[in-house]
């Protein structure tokens, strides 16, 4: 197995933004390269199949419109800033994991 790609791609396969960065290369030189999109944070390896590396072959079901990213649900919500946090343990939550 060898790394077919030598140049950083122009487009993110998932969101088609032009913000692709070379993230890392294989410790054994020339085997693979990992790229990442700084807009949608999608990562892929140069040796993966077309459906993960080629914007035109990327499955429609998994595409991401970069303009929609700010509208995604925020989980968990960011609490209001409290300049006088309570001392001691908080309200006795009963949840877990």
């Amino acid at each position, binding site marked *: 197995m060898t790394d077919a790609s030598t140049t950083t791609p122009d487009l993110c396969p998932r969101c088609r933004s032009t913000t692709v960065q070379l993230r890392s290369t294989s410790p*054994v030189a020339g*085997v693979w390269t990992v790229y990442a999109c700084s807009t949608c944070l999608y*990562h892929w*390896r140069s040796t993966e*199949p077309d459906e993960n590396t080629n914007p035109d072959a990327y499955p429609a079901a998994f595409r991401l419109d970069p303009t929609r990213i700010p509208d995604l649900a925020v*989980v968990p*919500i960011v609490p209001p800033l409290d300049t006088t946090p309570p*001392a001691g343990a*908080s309200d006795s939550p009963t949840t877990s994991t």
Partner: protein
Amino acid sequence: MPAFTDLREFLTLLEEQHQLLRVTEQVALEPDLGAAGSALTRVGENSPAVRFDDIAGYEHSSVVMNVHGSWANHALALGLPKEATPKEQFEAFVKGYLKYPGELQRVDTAPWQEVVVDKDINLFDLMPLCRLNRGDGGFFLDKPCVISRDPDDWDNDDLENVGVYRLQVKDRNRLGLQSVPQHDIAIQLAHAEARGQDLPIAIALGNEPLITLMGATPMLYDQLEYKMAGAMQGEPYRVTQTDRGLDVPWGSEYVLEGRILARQREVEGPFGEFPGYYSGCHLYPVIEIDRVLHRKDPIYDTVYVGRPWTELDYLQAMTTSAPIYAQLKNDFPEVQAVNALYTHGLVVVVSTKTRYGGFAKAIGMRLLTTTHGLGYASIVIVVDEDVDPFDLNQVMWAMSVKVNPDGDITIVPNLSVNLLSPAGQPPGISHKMIIDATTPKPPDVRGDYGEELDTPLTTDVWHTKLTAMIKEMRG
């Protein structure tokens, strides 16, 4: 229950028990690792763990998968014979669980301190990160123990938390954290974010099998997973602290030290999740890694997540059943066993004695209000005490002959359910159903139940005798 010092000791046991397969040929990170993990879900209930020692692109790298991925491996993790039935494993798990609290033991040094990387951190170099399913948004750490404390009560060990949360690799030293408000770490993060402070965390990878099960168990907020592990194994659980005072399992392969960045959210996902569907994308918290420590020649442990059943379902099996049982049993001593094996307890089967007509429905309604039931438990099946809830042949028999839909089905509208349940409408809300599959008792006189078949007098004696003979015959 034996105390395994580390993952390596458990892998040795698995190998001795013919429950670990070594693949010596070179494999690619994609699609080989995900495909092998998926294939192991098709080889039957006693599928082995698998170890790869030649990963394309690395001089030295080792990956194990499916470590908890069968009833045999799960039994061995609990110190039981690998032939132990799910019911026997439930009973052993509950026996240890009800002994809480055990103890933790702090020691100054640990093997994971052998190699320290504190500059130019590159997770892609340090561990064989890979995509498991084609629609995953990247590479994930999906079997970590994430350790954190409550910033409002930092020195309170009982509020320290060990949780298993998926972590998406966002950069060489940056991760995304999938956390929902019900998680303990979300409570701690909220306390830190209210102060505008980062939340220090440690991420332990490649652990002995018990602490991973504890991290996946929905315990109370003031119950410490290490103390539960100590109770389960009957001796103190050994940990070593990081510089920031976070307790980490002594035997971990990798330890990542970092911070959840205050008040930041970033796109995360999708990732193939436990219901058998992709999770979608959300804006989740972000982690920056400051330091990585690891053993020499570390072993990377990852779990394949696909349509159930996979290793993930074993991680969520008794760890889900036992806490529900403990809460139910506290209110209703009649309860015998709880099977919450199905998709993290979206379907639950409970066996119970019944005292009078309508009693089983009360058990079902109480189950819906247990801590875990609130967010999962969409369908509850209640069976009689002599039905093994882990034996679906018996459960289906009870459903066949003891359920009259006119009177035995109760639907409660618009209750809470996990956001990841695809049937929720809207997401997070679902009707829930209780199926009363117990024999009606007065004053409920519905049906025409005569004498139930029992077994001939010496059946148990013959069962023991014939089982031994069959084992001898098969070697």
